[in-house]
């Protein structure tokens, strides 16, 4: 086990279960299968009138998506404040965060899902779309990280 999980495994499983409970609460309360990436599109719908950003689902869901995103930020902050106290600042260079972010925003919205929308929600319903998307983004991300490693380091 130490080889697969050098920092231990209980926090991974516990965190994953909490993520599932969060999705379950939103589903039982509202019927929405909540991923995270739609938030970017629904937020843009507040600031441009272009038809591509005024679809019915965006106007219908944007309040809920915004509240959910606030919850994600606040939930992580509360956990850090009340439980583990481990505030964190990444060492990943800003250009990698920014450039990667553009690809992530474009790709997740084109694919209609991200690690939560396809990875958690879609896999939980075994949709064909997510069964295609998840192996693809996992495989491509691993390949990309390996290809960049000699250039950029870990």
């Amino acid at each position: 086990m130490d080889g697969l999980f050098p920092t231990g495994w209980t926090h991974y499983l516990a965190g994953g279960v909490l993520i599932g409970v969060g999705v379950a609460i939103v589903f039982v309360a509202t019927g929405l299968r909540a991923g995270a990436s739609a938030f970017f599109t629904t937020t843009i719908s507040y600031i441009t009138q272009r038809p591509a950003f005024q679809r019915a689902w965006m106007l219908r869901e944007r309040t809920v998506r915004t509240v959910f995103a606030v919850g994600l930020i606040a939930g992580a902050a509360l956990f850090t404040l009340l439980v583990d106290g481990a505030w964190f600042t990444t060492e990943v260079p800003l250009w990698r965060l920014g450039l990667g972010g553009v690809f992530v925003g474009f790709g997740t919205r084109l694919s209609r899902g991200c690690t939560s929308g396809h990875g958690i929600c879609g896999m939980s319903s075994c949709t064909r779309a997510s069964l295609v998307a998840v192996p693809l983004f996992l495989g491509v991300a691993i390949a990309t990280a390996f290809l960049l490693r000699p250039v950029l380091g870990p």
Partner: protein
Amino acid sequence: MRLLAVLLGGLVFGAGLAWSTMARPEVVLSFLHLADFGLLLVMGGGIAVTALAFALAPRLRGRPLFTASFDAADARLDRRTAIGAIVFGVGWGISGACPGAALASLGIGNAPILVAIAGMFVGAWLQGRLLPDGD
């Protein structure tokens, strides 16, 4: 009440992202380098609970607590699904950041992640400008 429940769901989800350390790009990158397989445990735990909720809730209750009906799963599979997943994978491999984890990362005090979040907004905007969805 509906929005309070969504806030609660988001809080629990965000706490899970912090506890699992997925809010740290370094931990995600260590998975992508196949040095630590924790991310698969996180996904597995999340899928187990979510699958249970998605299967049971509509059977136990005809409708959600605060709305008229449960949404059907969005199963549309086309070229967008696959090409988008590939583009996402490239960005995830470069940055170690995905949408939910990036938002939670703000919560654990990681100010530089704002650059990734700004990038995601730019990417989502480009998607809507260049290849908008039909609906």
